């Protein structure tokens, strides 16, 4: 039995509880049965093949047992002493390892929230990502949702401590397919900084299919940082879907430094006047890594501003994909939307496939996009060398300089410094 058949059989046996998750789950079950795992014919998956990842014998549904506090201590992020820490192990939220320092922060299981006073919120936002992501992989997560959380940052709450979210895969005993799920609600006037990281321990294969949906209300301010520095056997589809429901501010920084096949879907839906969104990304990959950043900025309402800058540095045999969609719906007049993707290839075997995609249905808008793929600037290299800086160090300086205007947007200092340090290490070991 192939894994897809296995998943389909699992679907048949699914028992969908009668709560506010149900409608989305039922849709997802139908969608997955129809669409299955996206193959190369799916327009959005042309350059990122995940079919083979399902031809493995995974532990599914995954279990979190076997992971310990000591294991966690080895992978906590700098600054954790002053952060809220939410821990997922093999896709299941582990409250026993999580640390909630901000009293205002409400964490409930998704199933619980779908039945209590939050059920309306859950009904409104759970599964909304499927409106933009029409593929079986998104449906798969929703269909089998299990062990997910609902995070409520209530109206007026300004979190003074960031929220670290660990997506941990324990592949020490067997291969693991895990599907973490979370729904985050950020109320009016609330402020929060979210930091996500992905860590796989053990040598077996892993495939993580994560979906996070975030609803942001009026006058809220959100910083979101995704740090990916996993092992080369760790495969990941990471979907982060933001809805800006009122005039609000969002900025995101996606950093990818290592992994197997990594696909990031980042959606920002601007559903109110005068929303502001910034999307930054840096991917610096080597070896056989495959990094795919698919972003969607969906302008639904007028007068919104969005700015997107993704930069790539590729070494070894790494392959990169950037696909940046900007939708401007017909009511979204006076949209300002900018997008830029710049890539440096440091080796002959590295590659990048970049594609901006603007679909504009309003007439009074300002949109721009641009992409470049090139090598390190020879003139700059010579300039540095001629001042006594040896070639490898000059290269490092230039890569670092290239990354600067992404890294400077990582606001939590401990995380900023941590990423800089990871990049330094990479520069030391990964440059040709």
């Amino acid at each position, binding site marked *: 039995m192939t894994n897809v058949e296995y998943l389909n059989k699992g679907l048949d046996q699914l028992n969908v509880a009668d709560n506010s998750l149900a409608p989305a789950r039922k849709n997802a079950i139908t969608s997955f049965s129809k669409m299955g795992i996206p193959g190369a014919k799916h327009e959005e998956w042309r350059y990122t093949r995940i079919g083979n990842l399902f031809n493995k014998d995974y532990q599914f549904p995954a279990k979190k047992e076997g992971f310990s506090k000591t294991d966690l201590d080895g992978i906590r992020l700098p600054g954790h002493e002053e952060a809220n820490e939410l821990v997922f192990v093999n896709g299941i939220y582990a409250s026993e390892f999580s640390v909630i320092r901000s009293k205002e922060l409400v964490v409930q299981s998704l199933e619980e929230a779908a039945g209590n006073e939050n059920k309306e919120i859950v009904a409104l936002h759970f599964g909304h990502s499927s409106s933009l992501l029409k593929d079986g992989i998104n449906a798969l997560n929703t269909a089998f949702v299990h062990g997910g959380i609902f995070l409520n940052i209530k109206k007026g709450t300004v979190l003074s401590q960031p929220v670290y979210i660990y997506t941990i895969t324990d592949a020490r005993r067997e291969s693991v397919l895990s599907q973490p799920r979370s729904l985050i609600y950020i109320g009016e006037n609330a402020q929060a900084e979210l930091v996500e990281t992905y860590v796989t321990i053990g040598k077996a294969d892993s495939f993580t299919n994560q979906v996070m949906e975030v609803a942001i209300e009026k006058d809220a301010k959100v910083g979101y940082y995704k740090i990916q520095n996993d092992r080369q056997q760790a495969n990941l589809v990471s979907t982060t879907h933001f809805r800006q429901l009122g005039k609000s501010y969002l900025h995101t920084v996606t950093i990818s430094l290592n992994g197997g096949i990594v696909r990031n879907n980042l959606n920002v839906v601007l559903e109110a006047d005068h929303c502001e969104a910034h999307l930054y990304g840096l991917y610096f990959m080597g070896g056989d890594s495959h990094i795919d950043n698919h972003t969607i900025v969906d302008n639904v309402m007028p007068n919104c501003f969005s700015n997107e800058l993704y930069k790539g540095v590729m070494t070894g045999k790494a392959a990169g994909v950037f696909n940046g969609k900007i939708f401007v719906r017909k009511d979204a007049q006076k949209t300002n939307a900018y997008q830029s993707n710049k890539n440096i290839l440091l080796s002959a075997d590295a590659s990048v496939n970049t594609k901006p995609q603007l679909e504009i249905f309003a007439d009074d808008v300002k949109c721009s996009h641009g992409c470049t793929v090139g090598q390190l600037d020879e003139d700059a290299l010579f*300039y540095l060398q*001629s*001042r*006594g*800086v*040896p*070639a490898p*160090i000059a290269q490092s300086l230039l890569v670092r300089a290239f990354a600067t205007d992404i890294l400077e947007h990582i606001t939590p200092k401990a995380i900023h410094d941590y990423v800089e340090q990871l990049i330094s290490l990479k520069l030391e070991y990964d440059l040709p």
Partner: protein
Amino acid sequence: MLKIQNLKASVEGKAILKGIDLEIKAGEVHAIMGPNGSGKSTLASVLAGRKEYEVTEGSVEYLGKDLLELAPEERAGEGLFLAFQYPVEIPGLTTTNFIKTAVNEIRKYRGEAPLDAVAFLKMMKEKMAMMNIGQSLLSRPLNEGFSGGEKKRNEVFQMAMLQPKMAILDETDSGLDIDAIRIVANGVNKLRNKDNAVLVVTHYQRLLDYIVPDFVHVLYNGRIVKSGTKELALELEEKGYDFIKNEVNVGEGV
């Protein structure tokens, strides 16, 4: 100190330097003048070690070493410095960060310990005052958005920081206001002593009023076609290059 013999170089198969002979001794200042496109910057780039210029013939001896065998950073380590005609802009890298790396890499090359923060800052302050450069400029990304004059002053500031034995200034006076020329010249003169040498490429006699050369050479069509003392610069200023071009062309029987 620097001995160039029959140096020929080409770029993309096109011959640009067609046999340069030039000897510069310690303590001397040489000026190179010549019409646009004659090969002055090419000569400077070849001396600094730019890869895209292929040396097809000739030799360059520098402080007893075969200069052409050395990588650009090794040449810098040996005390060679080139102030670029067109300094490169590097967004994301501050001048301070860059110059600190350069100073310490050169020290490493020479087997010296890196400068500690205090010593480095002291040196920075001293050279900044000398070059009349403010901290704000140096905290900005290297040359990015600098005015033409600021870029040139930054070049000479870096030269002052690196204290080269052999400095090559490629049109460092172009684009400078009158005060800045004096500041730059002053910076160069402070560097001068019996153990080092300077090669200035310029189009204007004016700079040579401040940095008085021992010799003036005219580069034309990839060759040094005339050499003289500082009076030659005055003569060129007055007559232009035509009389030299005529001499050369007659000499070559064109």
